[in-house]
């Protein structure tokens, strides 16, 4: 029995088509405009009220290489990567063999029948649905570029018919997307109709799986993590962003710019009567990631909320200044949209392999606050929290998103905003505060959480101090004295530990009779929860914890110590989360096993189920 069948086996039995439970794979050539067609299908399914996800498996290339898009439809909301495809839309001759080979038995291949498929590709156990896309679009459209682009929309039309997308919804979406460009809207509609009508006349009316409108997306939005992160930075009141282009983080900064241009521009009337636009933000495209973090540190030191967004290679470069910010106690928010390392690695593939690097970034004794979002909703919420934490604890805070969260569309609960929110600016003293205190010691007078007061350059007459990355004492003065040095760095260690109480607490789900715990982080969540449900349906109950921040709090420690055995699910080769739990959460190494996925594609429930089963066999359960 397939995993999906197990997951969705309903009380009504196996009769009739499978409703709202299937996966589609689109095999395209990159640079041909397929993204808008695939996105159209994704949004249409979402708008019909059915939980859905889209995962873009794309090459590090501009044009001409194979690229895939996977859509998983699941009425129960399980939308992690499926790996079992009910239909492949095979639009790339280079990868026909691979794409057709991956199809589940009984599945469907939709291909361009303008040309015959090579006989060697024909599988007896799958169904071939030919649509003469090139011929139809060649007849209907004139320009060569338009003919190529519209083939995509035409297959979207055919797929829509086959799986039961409401044509009214498609029309609405096109209307919204191309409201400013009537010609484009018309040609898209024409192409969509071509494919839809052809399928209606020539292809089977009923496949063994199909869509039915539902209510599963009420109160939800379909959004990517990078847009959500940028939105969080905007709402947190960030005014300075510095960045260097890097996949998969680029769209954080680009979206932040778009948002600022929409929400942070004012018209001002100059003394001579002319009206000009003024920006309440500065976005700096830096010369490299060293500079990007340097700019963030400078801006944060001066009192602005500032952030940078990058990926693993950028974090490597930022190590130097992460140590500076840690030691000089300057807030800095760093968004790390993780990709596959080491070195350049696979820039368009996902991993969670920056965890250890970020936790201890820079030379010397350091430890940094990390936030570990699982989806775009948490990207939004945690981005705001990152600024509060960075300013309260005067230290770098890294938000570790990843390519899967950052660049793919996820159906998540609508974001909400409390208009009563005010930033936690931490201990910033004004001249009046200093007069009241009678003195100002930059690295002295710590509060209960070991945080010391700071002042802002250019804004304080009484509070001038000298910030230095060299050895300093509690007054901020240069020192080479062991005790004076130690006093500061010992407080720093306690300060970062104290932050644990302010981080998002772990998400824990327990089941009666569970002996084993499963621990995970970030974008693994969907696959792990689905796997636990499948295992539970087969009589294996497991407890679950997803850590959402570092340093770990007592809840995380208790979960580990209360289980004889835990399995840590993560997307890297070296079991970095497991190592961090052993180092920092008092976990005994022998009690922690691992389920690892590091090939660069998002982890699936199948991998987790198999990992758990292997573990059960090993320990003889």
């Amino acid at each position, binding site marked *: 029995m397939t995993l999906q069948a197990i997951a969705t086996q309903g009380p009504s039995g196996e009769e009739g088509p499978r409703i709202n439970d299937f996966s589609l794979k689109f095999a395209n050539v990159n640079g041909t405009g397929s993204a808008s067609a695939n996105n159209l299908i994704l949004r249409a399914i979402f708008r019909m009220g059915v939980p859905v996800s889209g995962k873009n498996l794309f090459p590090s290339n501009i044009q001409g290489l194979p690229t895939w898009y996977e859509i998983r439809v699941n009425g129960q909301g399980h939308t992690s990567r499926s790996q079992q495809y009910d239909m492949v839309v095979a639009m790339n001759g280079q990868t026909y063999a691979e794409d057709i080979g991956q199809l589940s038995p009984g599945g469907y291949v939709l291909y361009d029948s303008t040309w015959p498929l090579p006989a060697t590709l024909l599988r007896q156990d799958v169904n071939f649905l030919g649509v003469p896309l090139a011929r139809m679009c060649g007849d209907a459209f004139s320009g060569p570029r338009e003919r190529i682009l519209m083939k995509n929309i035409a297959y979207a039309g055919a797929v829509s018919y086959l799986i039961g997308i409401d044509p009214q919804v498609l029309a609405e979406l096109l209307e919204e997307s191309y409201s400013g460009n009537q010609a484009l809207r018309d040609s898209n509609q024409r192409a969509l109709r071509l494919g839809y009508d052809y399928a209606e006349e020539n292809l089977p009316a009923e496949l063994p799986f199909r869509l039915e409108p539902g209510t599963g997306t009420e109160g939800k939005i379909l959004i990517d993590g990078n847009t959500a992160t940028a939105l969080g930075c905007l709402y947190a009141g960030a005014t300075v962003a510095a960045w260097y282009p890097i996949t998969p983080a680029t769209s954080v900064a680009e979206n932040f710019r778009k948002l600022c241009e929409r929400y942070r521009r004012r018209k001002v009337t100059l003394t001579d009567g002319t009206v000009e636009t003024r920006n309440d933000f500065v976005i700096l495209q830096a010369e490299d990631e060293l500079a990007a973090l340097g700019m963030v540190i400078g801006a944060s030191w001066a009192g602005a909320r500032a952030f940078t967004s990058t990926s693993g290679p950028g974090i490597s470069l930022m190590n130097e200044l992460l140590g500076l910010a840690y030691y000089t106690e300057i807030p800095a928010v760093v968004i790390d949209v993780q990709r596959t390392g080491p070195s350049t690695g696979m820039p368009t593939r996902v991993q969670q392999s920056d965890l250890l690097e970020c936790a201890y970034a820079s030379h010397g004794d350091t430890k940094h606050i990390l936030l570990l979002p699982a989806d775009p909703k948490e990207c939004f919420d945690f981005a705001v929290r990152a600024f509060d934490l960075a300013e309260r604890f005067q230290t770098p805070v890294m938000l570790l998103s990843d390519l899967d969260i950052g660049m793919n569309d996820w159906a998540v609960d609508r974001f909400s905003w409390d208009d009563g929110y005010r930033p936690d600016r931490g201990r910033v003293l004004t001249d009046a505060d200093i007069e009241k205190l009678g003195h100002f010691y930059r690295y002295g007078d710590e509060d209960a959480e070991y945080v010391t007061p700071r002042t802002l350059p250019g804004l304080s007459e009484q509070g*001038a101090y*000298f910030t230095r990355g060299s050895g300093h004492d509690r007054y901020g003065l240069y020192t080479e004295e062991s005790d004076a040095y130690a006093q500061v760095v010992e407080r720093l260690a306690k300060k970062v530990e104290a932050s644990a109480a302010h981080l998002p607490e772990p998400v824990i789900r327990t089941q009666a009779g569970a002996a084993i715990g499963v621990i995970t982080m970030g974008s693994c969540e969907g696959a792990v929860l689905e796997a636990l449900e499948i295992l539970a349906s087969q009589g294996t109950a497991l407890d679950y914890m997803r850590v959402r921040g570092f340093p770990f709090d007592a809840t995380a420690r208790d979960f580990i110590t209360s289980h004889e055995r835990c399995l840590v699910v993560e997307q890297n080769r070296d079991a970095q989360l497991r190592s961090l739990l052993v180092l920092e959460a008092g976990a005994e190494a022998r009690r922690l096993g691992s389920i690892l996925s590091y090939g660069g594609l998002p982890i699936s429930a199948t991998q987790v189920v198999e990992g758990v089963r292997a573990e059960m066999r090993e320990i003889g359960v």
Partner: protein
Amino acid sequence: MPSIKKPLIPLAAMPKNDIGLTIRDYEGSMSTLCAGCGHDSVTAAIVRALFELSIPPHKVVKMSGIGCSSKTTAYFDSAAHGFNSAHGRMAPIATGANAANRDALYIGISGDGDSLSIGAGHMVHAIRRNVHMVYVIENNGVYGLTKGQFSASADIGSAAKHGEANTVAPVDPVMLALSLGASFVARSFSGDKEQLVPILKAAAQHRGLALIDVISPCVQFNNHYGSTKSYRYVREHELREIEPDFISTGREIVADLPHDGALMVAMHDGGLVRFRTLPADYDPTDREAAMHYVNQAHARGEIPTGLLFVDESIPDVHELNHTSESPLVELPFEELCPGSAELEDFQKSFV
């Protein structure tokens, strides 16, 4: 150690500037550099320039990287915040600070190791962005704190303390800055306070990045015979033809402006630079002429000093960005956060 306090000797009434401060109010902690270090003279010139400009001491922000030069931010204006950051990274950190709060005078102090080697890329891009700051390179051709290695500004043939000659072509910050489109480029000599103070004052009133390459001999490792960054060599080869005077335009001085046909350049933040001496064919507002002049002087083995090029019309980073006039740090959160209604509205395009 920079933390050593200067002894306060009560002196007779010292002259006060326009905001009622004496020159002592612009001093910093005691220098820990070697006796005779050129950098201390630069520090003294900065103190003098700030005093004469009557800048409120806390409205100065002192930025530096790592190295002998970078220590000197501790030795002036102790009422100003200072940031002695990481080697080579002064420029981006200053860029960020300036982005956040444009309402201060940013003075970056760097050296030839800091700006021409490890931080060369950052300096280049700070110049391109025209960050509103005074960028001083205390240039001695040598790494002091690590005891005497050649830096990127060492001339070919210039000898190290123990005799070996440098064989690698130098990076010349003046030519580099001119070629990058810098808006203010000067070169001076730490031993020439009379020239350096007016250059610093003009730089402080310049809108954009004012690059000042100050040859500042290292008495310990690079002041010997055979070095082209020694006091003696610079004195013998300095070409002092482009002499600026900075004239504050406050109050009565305006009326006293001499009308002797000298070239005058109005600085963005007020004040005028009057060029006392100029070669007949030299126009410090003409980039190509400046580059030609400097190249020719170099070819003759001369070191041209003075305010070599200035262009007040080049937009700085904030003008290019259309940044709000009030510093970003002073914008109230209520104006920065779009609020819940806008969030609802924004999400309509994600359903």
